[in-house]
């Protein structure tokens, strides 16, 4: 049996979670005595193959076809499902990104396989896999098993360690029939700017109602840029129209787990904590000393964020 890792790329650039998934696949393959195969789907992706070899894939498989230049769930899932049908792997892994989660679910739907989404831990013992996945947006952790010969799992970004490894095998091609997509991609609009993607960021600076208005986010953006961080938001600030929903962290937003989460002017409602409670370190800045954020923050500062944030930003720039 093998482990298949579907490595996500866009415009020929592999996502960080692709390396995380391959590293985890390699670790599990060693535990289970299996081989790991990395599958890349796209067009003009030869360079991805060379990059993935650094992480010790026993085989790198490229489904390289012009018809796959634009991502559509249908075509990519058809390729993945065809590879799974050919390979009959014990396990199929990929990142729980916006694209990865729907791709995994559609391919698992075609293959009639079980899928545990958004895993934070996978164990192999007594010949079977066990999956841990936060439920109720992290208010509880469920332990799951999957029946059937092939199991699918998506991995929460920023949780699994990346490790380079030896033992890379050949790069081979995979050319299944590609169905005609029912969806046409008319345009892809990238959010401008150099800030990292929220779910993959090592550091996130978030703001809430305490910022007082949309202009308050300038303080958060300046702080984020001094740290190379992503910018997040509480639900209150999104509902007030100060920030786009794509930035919302919490139960009805994104679930993140950076090394450092700086919450400014965020009270710390249960729904928000659910979305960032697995951050390694939390800093809370709030003028209300009783704010719930101080019950979870590793470092808390009670005070006026309008005074604190500019000083913090300057200090970090010097550092």
């Amino acid at each position, binding site marked *: 049996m093998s482990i298949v890792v579907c490595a996500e790329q866009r415009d020929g650039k592999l996502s960080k979670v692709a390396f995380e998934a391959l590293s985890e696949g390699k670790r599990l393959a060693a535990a289970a005595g299996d081989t790991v195969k990395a599958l890349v789907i796209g067009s003009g992706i030869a360079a991805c193959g060379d990059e993935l070899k650094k992480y010790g894939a026993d085989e790198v498989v490229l489904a390289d076809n012009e018809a796959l230049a634009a991502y559509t769930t249908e075509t990519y899932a058809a390729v993945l499902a065809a590879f799974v049908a050919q390979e009959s792997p014990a396990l199929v892994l990929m990142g729980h990104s*916006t694209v990865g989660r729907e791709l995994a*679910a559609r391919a698992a739907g075609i293959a009639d396989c079980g*899928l545990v989404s958004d895993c934070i831990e996978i164990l192999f013992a007594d010949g079977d896999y066990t999956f841990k996945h936060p439920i*109720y947006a992290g208010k509880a952790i469920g332990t799951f098993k999957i029946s059937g010969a092939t199991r699918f799992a998506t991995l929460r970004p920023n949780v699994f360690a990346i490790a380079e490894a030896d033992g890379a095998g050949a790069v081979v091609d995979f050319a299944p029939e590609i169905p005609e997509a029912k969806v046409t991609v008319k345009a892809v609009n990238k959010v401008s700017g150099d800030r990292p993607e929220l779910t993959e960021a090592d550091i996130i600076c978030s703001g809430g109602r305490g910022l007082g208005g949309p202009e308050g986010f300038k303080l958060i953006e300046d702080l984020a840029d001094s740290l190379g961080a992503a910018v997040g938001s509480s639900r209150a600030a999104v509902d007030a129209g100060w920030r786009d*929903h794509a930035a919302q962290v919490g139960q009805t937003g994104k679930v993140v787990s950076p090394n450092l989460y700086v919450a400014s002017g965020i009270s710390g409602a249960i729904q928000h904590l659910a979305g960032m409670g697995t951050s390694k370190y939390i800093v809370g800045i709030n003028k209300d000393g009783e704010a719930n954020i101080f019950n979870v923050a590793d470092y808390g500062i009670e005070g006026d964020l309008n005074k604190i944030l500019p*000083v913090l930003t300057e200090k970090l720039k010097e550092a």
Partner: protein
Amino acid sequence: MKIVACIKQTFDTEAKIVIGGDGQISDEGVNMILNPYDEYAVEEAIKTKEKDGGEVVIISVGSDKTQEALRYSLAMGADRAVLINDPALANADSHAVSVALAKLLSDKEAGFDVIFTGKEAVDDGAAQVPSRLAAKLDIALANVVTGIELADGKAAVTREIDGGTEELEMALPALIAAQKGLNEVRYPSLPGIMKAKRKPLDVVSLADLGLSAEDVASKVEMVSAELPPARKAGQKLTGEVEEVVAKLVELLKDEAKVI
């Protein structure tokens, strides 16, 4: 137009999670709501009917209790509801739910033009049913959608991707999974609530659908659940602004080693 919205009843997002003696999550005393993302789906279905005419059918897999969420959707303005309720679906995973929904939608409720769902449910956070259902019905899927224009048998949608958005176009029938921001969800009016009581709500079993318990056997089983390790309050830094900021930077560097 035949407009369908698939919904799930979930725990209130404010609910505190309690693990019962059986190691599973207890629903005792928990307030149940229409899954927040599914509210956008129901709203969009009703808006579509108001613009283009037709019928709005709400569908769910659930228990007797789920009728509340269906009645709520009817009170918002949907026309009728179908609940798939069967003991064999008590612990249904995303696979089982999508098999049951697909059978209903390709048989008794065939002929839909568009299906709306939420992009995920806030309880299991699996985000699988829209993709699995679209695969089973072999129709186009637009997932995580924040904008829709339906015209001439086509859908033009805006959807979120990692680090941006995409503009997609597809022929109907299609499945559209709603993200927050798609619309402003209405509250049921009092007349709406009164009317909803008399609107049709059909309950069907697996046998009614021509499915066996084996057809909907779950692939994924939750063996147990636990509460995450509680975070503890750390240290509060006090003093003048310059002083606390210097202290914070030092701690982040030397103790946490995160910058």
